[in-house]
């Protein structure tokens, strides 16, 4: 493998104001369009299989139909036709089939202790009479309020296993994901997706509950029709096809000084074990009308959940995805790559939920989207640095192992797509904005 360079060359000619068609990175649609019901654009990639994600991966973006409505809004529309009483009966039937009476756990609820997992576990236990075991994949770096909320979840009446990955491995994989994919959240997603099935096998609990279905946020509509989560998201038949941080397992072990055991928490569960257990993965959002804002109210009322003490940079919200300090950067990178920042995600969700209207959403996006996340930046740059003392072999793979603002900004520019960004008089600006 070649060295990660200190600086990447950005050809600014590609970013001049232009009338001619411009190349789109990541296989995104060249012509940008916006959903006319929410604020999302057709540049928003749908969930992909993270351990196959490499720098050359082509994204599949959210579908916006002939009437300029996105799939996520269509899902929201279909929700109004659902017979929730019938779904509730389905859930009760499912619980009745699995409920234990011998002192064992009967379902697994993965989550962070944020509002959604709080509601999932709490409802299953106190409303549906189940005996959930909760499992948590730790954030990169907890926020103080995220940690307190996690504790409140446990103290609302749950056993919990917290899996915290080896900090050095996690940092290295995150740095690689930033270098290769500009995706600082990837190591978290990888571990989070594989933890629950593995814990299910370990504890022999076949029934796994998540809160919301990803189709809520624009994965193909077909996904939502079945509550059972497709296997492909969390099991891999062959290890050789697996990439972490966009780097093959072979390279990670030969060039970056990692051993097989270091990678284990990130690797998908063995399908054979899952099949033998007869694992069933369900979304509560299929059975119960899921409303993120109501989840906030519910967890305040039943667990003393606290909102973040200030709005998250890049958006206006305080109750949503607030437990990881790296989260600010996660949404900043989606803004750079797809022109879609945190305010777009939050506003789109709240529009679909009926909490705000589109005009308000547009105003919020115009005001907050893409704001540079200053508050934890020094800490995050230290986190993303790979000093020789701690990483004797891996640090040699970086011309500049230490991450700083200049390095990060240059990297960011290298991930900008000409069809989204223009550069004029030292300023980057989006070619299209939601109106």
């Amino acid at each position, binding site marked *: 493998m070649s060295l990660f360079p200190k600086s990447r060359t950005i050809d600014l000619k590609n970013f001049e104001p232009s009338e001619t068609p411009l190349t789109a990175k990541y296989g995104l649609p060249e012509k940008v369009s916006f959903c006319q019901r929410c604020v999302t654009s057709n540049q928003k990639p749908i969930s992909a299989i993270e351990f196959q994600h490499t720098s050359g991966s082509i994204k599949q973006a959210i579908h916006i139909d002939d009437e300029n409505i996105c799939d996520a809004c269509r899902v929201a529309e279909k929700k109004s036709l659902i017979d929730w009483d019938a779904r509730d009966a389905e859930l009760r039937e499912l619980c009745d089939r699995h409920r234990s009476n011998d002192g064992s756990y009967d379902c697994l609820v993965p989550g962070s202790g944020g509002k959604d997992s709080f509601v999932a576990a709490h409802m299953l236990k106190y409303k549906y009479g189940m005996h959930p075991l909760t499992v948590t994949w730790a954030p990169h770096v907890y926020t103080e309020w995220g940690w307190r909320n996690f504790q409140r979840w446990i103290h609302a009446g749950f056993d919990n296993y917290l899996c915290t990955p080896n900090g050095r491995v996690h940092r290295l994989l995150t740095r690689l994901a930033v270098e290769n994919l500009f995706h600082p959240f990837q190591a978290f997603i990888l571990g989070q997706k594989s933890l629950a099935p593995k814990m299910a096998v370990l504890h022999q609990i076949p029934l796994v509950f998540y809160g919301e279905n990803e189709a809520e946020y624009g994965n193909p509509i077909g996904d939502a029709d079945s509550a059972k989560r497709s296997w492909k998201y969390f099991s891999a038949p062959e290890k050789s096809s697996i990439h972490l941080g966009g780097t093959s397992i072979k390279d990670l072990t030969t060039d970056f000084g990692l051993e097989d055991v270091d990678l284990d928490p990130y690797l998908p569960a063995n399908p054979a074990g899952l099949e033998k257990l007869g694992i069933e993965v369900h979304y509560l959002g299929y059975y119960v009308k899921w409303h993120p*804002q109501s989840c906030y*109210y519910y967890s305040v009322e039943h667990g003393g959940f606290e909102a973040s003490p*200030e*709005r998250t940079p890049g958006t*206006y919200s305080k109750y949503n995805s607030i437990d990881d300090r790296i989260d600010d950067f996660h949404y900043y990178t989606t803004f750079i790559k797809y022109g879609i920042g945190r305010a777009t995600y939050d506003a789109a969700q709240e529009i679909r939920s009926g*909490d705000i209207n589109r005009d*308000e959403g547009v105003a919020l996006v115009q005001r907050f989207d893409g704001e540079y996340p200053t508050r934890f930046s020094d800490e995050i740059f230290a986190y993303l640095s790979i000093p020789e003392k701690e990483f004797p072999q891996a640090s040699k793979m970086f011309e500049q192992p230490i991450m700083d603002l200049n390095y990060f900004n240059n990297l960011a520019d290298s991930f900008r797509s000409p069809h989204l960004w223009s550069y004029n008089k030292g300023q980057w600006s989006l070619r299209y904005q939601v109106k």
Partner: protein
Amino acid sequence: MVSSLPSQVNSLTPRQILRIIARLDIKGANLIKGIHLEGLRVVGDPQVHAEKYYNDGADEIIYMDTVASLYGRNNLLDVVTRATEHVFVPMTVGGGIRSVEDARALLRAGADKVAINTAAVKDPSLITKISDVWGSSTIVLSIEAKQTSPGKWEAYTDNGRERTGLDVVQWAERGAQLGAGEIFLTSVDQEGTKNGFDCQLVSAVTKLVDIPVVASGGFGKLDHLKELMQVSKPTGVAIADSLHYKKFNFNEIRAFCVSNNIATRQRSADEKISQ
């Protein structure tokens, strides 16, 4: 309108009589409510609620378009204009007031006082400018306070979203010096929780500031009023959640105050009939 006071409070100055204020947070055309000023839920039509609170005996109504700054807009004019036809207690209006002209429009529409937060933080002289034109009794400094350490609070703007770096107590003092006639003090930590007022916060401000202070955020049961009055000297309390969700009405609140020696304005029976 003249309110008759029971004999034991006749000798008190207005500052010693606790005003019970209905707080209505407004977004667009709707009455809304959040927790920690977050997760804003639509409650209903502000006009319906304001009329009810007036008829039930509110001493004052405060309208807060708490998201006006967030969205960069100002649209309380319609709400205020509608309210003046049926609501005859003092009305304070806050949210999105950025200039003397904004204040003028709201006062003309029927507001008795205007409350400013974000604009005052950006340009403190706006307090003086409004005070110079209409007098300090029309200008309320609204402060969203969040505790940073024991005995310390930071002022926030944009509905509890943006830090300002300003110490709440110092900011309240400065606001009074600049000409504010009242402090409307919201505890972001307690707001919407029904867990009680931030009594230490109110106490810290009322100890140092010589103008009326209204405590907002946290009322959830009657004892919370007693706790508040034991340690601090606010001139008013703002109640939202408990009124909107009909946990308490004004009669219950006043009766509690009477039995706990908290002086409030008492409405006579004939006053209601004469409306």
